[in-house]
Structure formats: structure tokens, C-alpha cells
């Protein structure tokens, strides 16, 4: 259907500088993906809350007030208080920080490690590919939560600057092989593109070809992947915290807020259960939608 090429031909697009091109890309994204735009805005709000938690949160998330146990939401405590009299809204705000740092860092970690593994595997092929793929197979044959659960339980807690590094690893490790799979598949396609042959024919070095020529063309699937991972890692962190191998009290964490006492106080103090659950759902929802929207925009296969 060569005639169909015409409407999509971008032959006469005006030239632009990089920055302008980016802005235009964002503008196009906003126009074509209203849902994506909405989810990006939600994420920005949550990000803002997390980053500027100190100013956003009305109370110290750790400060207990034994005179104000399990108060329902009112003008002073917008989301009520928990069983220690801590302000739930403030804990939600700081919880955003925990969730986002863990979610984003571990998906980046898993995404980068897996991505490098995948690109290397695809570019070199042969025995390198075979060995790496067997390794990936091994990790892939265990459900994410089980791998994370065991790694988290085995490693215990190890906080660096308030971030639980071990938990980050525990959450990142199961996503690494997934990223490796997807990126390898994408890289195998890119690998056969004539422009990679052209780069090889031009005598460029392996790192230059892999990082300079292949990686940028894998940025789209990678970005989609990482945004989907972020959604899933936030859920995973919540589940691990619920199971008791995640974040440790009193660090504010949404998953943690749903475990323990909160479960029991539901009928008397539903706000202790409803708000953290909504916070998780909303954040995950936003990241998932963003991932979908990015995929729809970046992956031509989904551009119907």
C-alpha cells in the first residue's frame, strides 16, 4: 500500500533545533494522548509532593500524638490520623517520596542493567548471547514477587540516605531479565538495520555503535518499558511491605500503611485503609497510562 505512505510522509516538515523538536514532540503527545497528558500531570503532582514533602506535608510524618489516635479526617488532619496519632496525609506525602524513589530507582536500575544485557546480547550474538540468555531464562522462570520476596528477605534491610538499597535491589532484580528480553528483541531488529551496517562499514568501534547508534534507537521501547516497570515496582513494593519484607516502620510507605493495624481498624477508621490504597492505585494508574500513551506514541506498530 505505497499510496498510504503519502498522508504520513513528513517530507516537508520544517527543520528545527533539537530543543524545539522535543517541545514539538511533547506538544504532539499532549494533543494525541489526552489520557497520557492527564497521567503525566498526576505524576507531576505526586512527584512534586514527594520532592517537596517537607513543605507540602503539614506535619512531621514520624511525629506521634498520643492524644489524637485514629481521628477521622477533618480540617487539621485532612486524611485523619493513624494508631499513633500520626497525620496520615503527611505520611501519604512522604510515602510518595518512598514509593517514587523506590519505584523509579529500581525500574531504572532493572531497566538499565537489563537493557545493557539485552543490547550486548543482541549485538554480539553467538556464545555471549547464549550465555546471557540462559541466565535471563533462569531469572525469568520465577514469578517476580517470589524472587523479590526471597531476595528482600535474604538481604534484610540496608538503608542509605533513607532509601532502602537492598529493597531497591530486591525489586530491581526481577525486572532486569524482563528488560533484557524486550530490549534484546528490539535490539535484534535494530541490529539488522542498514544504518548499523553502515556504521560498521564506516569502521566505527563497538561501543560507538552500541551506545551511539543502537541505544538511541532503543530509547523508545526502553522508555515505555521503564514507565511500565515503575508502575509495577510501586505495586511490588506495596505488596512486599504488606508481606512484611518491604519498607520498615516508621518510614512512611503506602504499602506499609496498609499492613498491620490498618487492616484491623478498617471498620472503625476506614480512612487508614482507603487513602493509602487510593494513593497506590492512583500512582500506579498514572504510570501505567503514561506507559501506554508513550507506547502508542513511540511505537509505530501501535499507531493505527
Amino acid at each position, binding site marked *: 500500500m505505497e499510496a498510504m505512505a503519502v498522508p504520513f510522509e513528513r517530507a516537508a516538515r520544517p527543520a528545527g533545533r533539537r530543543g524545539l523538536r522535543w517541545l514539538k514532540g511533547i506538544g504532539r503527545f499532549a494533543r494525541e494522548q489526552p489520557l497520557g497528558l492527564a497521567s503525566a500531570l498526576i505524576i507531576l503532582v505526586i512527584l512534586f509532593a514527594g520532592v517537596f514533602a517537607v513543605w507540602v506535608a503539614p506535619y512531621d510524618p514520624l511525629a*506521634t500524638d*498520643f*492524644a489524637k*489516635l485514629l481521628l477521622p479526617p477533618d480540617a487539621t488532619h485532612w486524611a485523619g490520623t493513624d*494508631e499513633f496519632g500520626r497525620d496520615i496525609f503527611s505520611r501519604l506525602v512522604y510515602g510518595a517520596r518512598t514509593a517514587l524513589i523506590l519505584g523509579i530507582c529500581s525500574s531504572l536500575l532493572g531497566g538499565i542493567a537489563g537493557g545493557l544485557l539485552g543490547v550486548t546480547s543482541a549485538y554480539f550474538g553467538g556464545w555471549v548471547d547464549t550465555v546471557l540468555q540462559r541466565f535471563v531464562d533462569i531469572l525469568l522462570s520465577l514469578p517476580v514477587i517470589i524472587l523479590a520476596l526471597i531476595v528482600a528477605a535474604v538481604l534484610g*534491610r540496608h538503608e542509605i540516605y533513607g532509601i532502602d538499597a537492598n529493597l531497591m535491589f530486591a525489586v530491581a532484580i526481577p525486572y532486569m531479565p524482563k528488560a533484557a528480553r524486550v530490549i534484546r528483541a528490539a535490539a535484534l531488529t535494530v541490529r539488522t538495520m542498514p544504518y548499523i551496517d553502515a556504521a560498521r562499514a564506516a569502521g566505527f568501534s563497538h561501543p560507538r555503535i552500541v551506545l551511539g547508534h543502537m541505544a538511541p534507537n532503543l530509547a523508545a521501547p526502553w522508555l515505555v518499558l521503564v514507565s511500565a516497570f515503575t508502575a509495577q515496582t510501586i505495586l511490588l513494593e506495596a505488596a512486599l511491605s504488606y508481606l512484611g519484607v518491604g519498607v*520498615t*516502620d516508621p518510614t512512611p510507605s503506602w504499602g506499609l500503611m496498609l499492613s498491620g493495624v490498618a487492616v484491623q481498624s478498617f471498620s472503625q477508621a476506614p480512612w487508614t485503609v482507603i487513602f493509602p490504597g487510593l494513593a497506590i492505585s492512583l500512582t500506579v494508574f498514572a504510570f501505567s497510562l503514561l506507559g501506554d500513551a508513550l507506547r502508542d506514541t513511540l511505537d509505530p506498530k501501535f499507531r493505527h
Partner: protein
Amino acid sequence: MKVRSSVCAVVAATAVLFSAEGLANATPQRGGNLVFAVSLGEPATFDCHAAGSLNVMYRVAPHYSTLLQIDAAHYPKVVGDLAESWTVSPDGLVYEFKLRPNVKFHDGTKLTSGDVRASFERMRNPPQGVLSVRKELLADVASIETPDAGTVVFRLEKPNVSMLALLAQPYGCIYSEALLKSDPTYPAKKVMGTGPFKFVSYTPGAEWVGERFPDYFRPGLPHLDGFKAISLTPPSAVNALAGGQVMVDFRGVSPLEADRIVSTRGKDVQIFEANPAISTLFMAMINTQKPALRDPRVRKALALALDHWEGSKAMERSTTLSVVGGLARPGSEFARSNAELEKLPGFGRNVDAARAEARRLLAEAGQANLKLTFLNRKPWPFLGVYLIDQFRQIGVTMVQEQVEDSQFFARRRAGEFDLAVEYLPDYLDDPTAKWSIFVSHEKNPANIARYNDPKVDTLMEEQSRIGDPAKRLVVIRQLEEYILTQGYTLPLFWGRRTTVVDSRLQGYVPAPTNYVGQDLSQFWIKR
């Protein structure tokens, strides 16, 4: 026994005053099955002698008898179980027990003194491949003799004021000598005793079932046809109570949980509370080997940071640990009055002054910006929350590390922590056994504060020798005060046992310990 003054009006309205007398007056009805929750996980063994866990006791106790037992209704009174009567020689070295006649094992064989002796020998001196975790408790026993089939004689090396209580230990299940001979490890795998219920089945992770033993030696008992102990997670146990699917979870629930159950079941449940605390104390032991914590001023400052009285209010609502007390169980013969308690560091009512003092002490010790870790087990995150919050108020930063049990114990024993949780669960209040963990580290490695303090050792030794209770109490008080002022440990809270029981279930007595009164023989269901 008194009604818990609940924070929730609903509970107060439905809670009924009960007394042991009142219970005794009702006419028990025969029949029915007791379904109860066990929310403590699965038993590692069926062998009482090797077990330390309540999850074993709740399931196994109805199947066995012990020589003596502690009367749940009159804690800590010791009464006979298999023993009909007993005499103690004036020098306190010979204990002679007359056994009840016509006691039968579930397999039909008759119980003799040989069975009792074999069981205690097994506890005190386990053969190869058999584990006895409390053999030290019987260290003073020199020999066990069986003059005839109905008599057992214990000879002691030295007198022990606690001996009867020790022989009444709920873990002291009496096994069949004949079976032990063929397989000394049989109790670990097989349940066969003289208790009121016969073992029917165990489905790991699901249920443990027992049925009435018709030949139980107490006539007319048990009232129940059988029982079923259902394995549940703590939240699902509360759900099951709220849904009326189980009649009781003996471990107890938090008042918040009790409120929830009452809110759905109303008058169908009754709330019992052991008064005022059960014999389990939670403490934060301070690792005195850590450079910063070697300084008594720092340890004292940590103690001064705590506001137990306020903290108790929060704990009271949502946890089962909330009673303020020293190292002796509040309500026990060894306990101080609150007024006396308030003189100890960390128990004062003027918290602001105490905290100012704490800051001063820290500054003096050059530890104004102290950073600590608190090693905790999984079930009690709130202890860390509480401690961290309290320490923040004197400028001490602490991080809670909640780890899996194996790591917890390994690290605790290796001293890889600043503060670690320690808890004293027992069926007894007597300090001799209970406070053994305060003896110098070199004598008892279980002392995780890792100090070596001759004064503690001397006082411990001294109190165990004094026969006169009043004089002994003086020494005990002195010991308690010394340990607390040295800041070796920070007592946090004593356990509170709030039990929600289906109104139909009768015969339940809320003893101030989780360990006694679990043979279920007195329970009956009202129709």
C-alpha cells in the same frame, strides 16, 4: 478479674463481669465442638519438651496431662494434675507425689509412676537425638525414683523455693514410657498422652483436630466432644472472630480488634481481660559493647527519653502490649506500685524535665547527635515506632531494622545491633528463672546486653537463697532498681491479654499468662 475499661463504649456495654466463682456456679452442658483460632503459625514439633512456642502449646496441651499444674483461675497457685497429693520434706530436698489411680493413656495402657519418671528424665537428661529446651529448670533435681506404681519421688541437690512451680510447667507433658523406649522421639511426630482429648488429625497450615478421650481420668470431663484448632493469620483470625467462625483466639486481640469484632457480633461475644498484665515483658536491650552505649550516662539518657505513661495510651488502643511496669509483672507479688515505679528512670511523670536531663547527659557524654539502630522482629514494628519517636525528642536518631527471625537471633546473639528487642514470655513471675538473662554475659550468653556486672550476679544469687518472701522482695527490688538505673535494658510494655470469646463458650478463664489452662477440659458450650 475485672472488666476492662474499654476506650470504646460498645465494648463496655457488652462486657460482662465474670469471676471464677460465677463460672463454677453454672451447670456445664456436655457436647459440642470448640473451634478456635491459632494465629501463631505452624508447630515445629509436637513435643512439649522441645517446644518453646505457644503455637505448640495451644494445639498439644489438650492431649497431655502434667504432674502438677498452675490453676488458671487462681494464678499462680499450683494444683495437682496427675498428682493427687504430694509432700515436701522439711529440708526441701525430697518431693513425693502420689499419682491418681486409673489414669489411662489414649492407647488404653495404664499410666504408672514409670511414665512420669521417664518423662522427667527425658526433660532433664535428654537421650541422643532428643531435644529438651528447658532442662536447666530441672538442674537441681538429683534423681527421680518410683517406689511403687503410684508414687514418684524427686530428690533435689539443693533446696529450691520454686521447685513446685517448676514441676508444674505446662511443657511438662507426661509421655508413655513404653513408647519412649521403642522410640525416644515419638512425641515429636505422634501425639499420645493422658489428656482429656485424643488426637485425630493435623493438616499443616489448616487445622488440628482432637476428640473427647472417654477414659479421661477426671470423671465427667471433658465437657466438649472435641475441638478444632484452625490455623489463621492474625488478621484473618480477627475476621473469623468477627464472622463468628471461631469461638476464640486464646492469644488475645488488641482492643481495636476487639471493638471491631464487637461491632459486628454485639452480644454474641464477651470480652475477657487478664488483670492487669500477663507475664510477658517487652524490653529494648541495650548493647553495652557498642562504644557509644558503653557510657552509663547515654543509656540513662535513653531511658529518660521514654514517656511510658503516654505511650501506653497509644499501645492500649491498637496493640496487645500496653501495661506500664518495671521488670516484675504489674499485679504480681514482686511488682512495685506506680508511685514507686515513677521514681525509676523513664517512669517519671515529669517527662519534659526527664528529657532535658537526658539531653544534658548526652551532651555531657559527647553524644548529642547519637545515631542508633533498633533490631526488631517482624510482629512488633510499633515498638520501633514508639522508641524512634521518643528518642527523636532528645535528639537521638534511630532506625528500625525488622528482619526475619533467623537473622534476628543470629545478629542478636552476635551482638550486631545497638538496641534489640527482648521479651520474657513465661508462665511464672518468679525472678530466678525469669531474670536469668540479666546475669553477666560471660555466665549467660543469653544476656544480649552483653555486660558483665558482678553486682547483678551477686544480687541474683542472693535473692534465690532467701526463703523469707519479704526479705527476698527487698533484694529483688534492689536488683531491679540497679538494672534499670544502669540502663542495661529499657522495659517497654507488659502484655495485655484481651480475649474475645463467643458467648456460648463457658469455662474460659483469662489467666495472666498465655501458657496455663490450655487443656480445655473445663470448657463447655452453652446451647
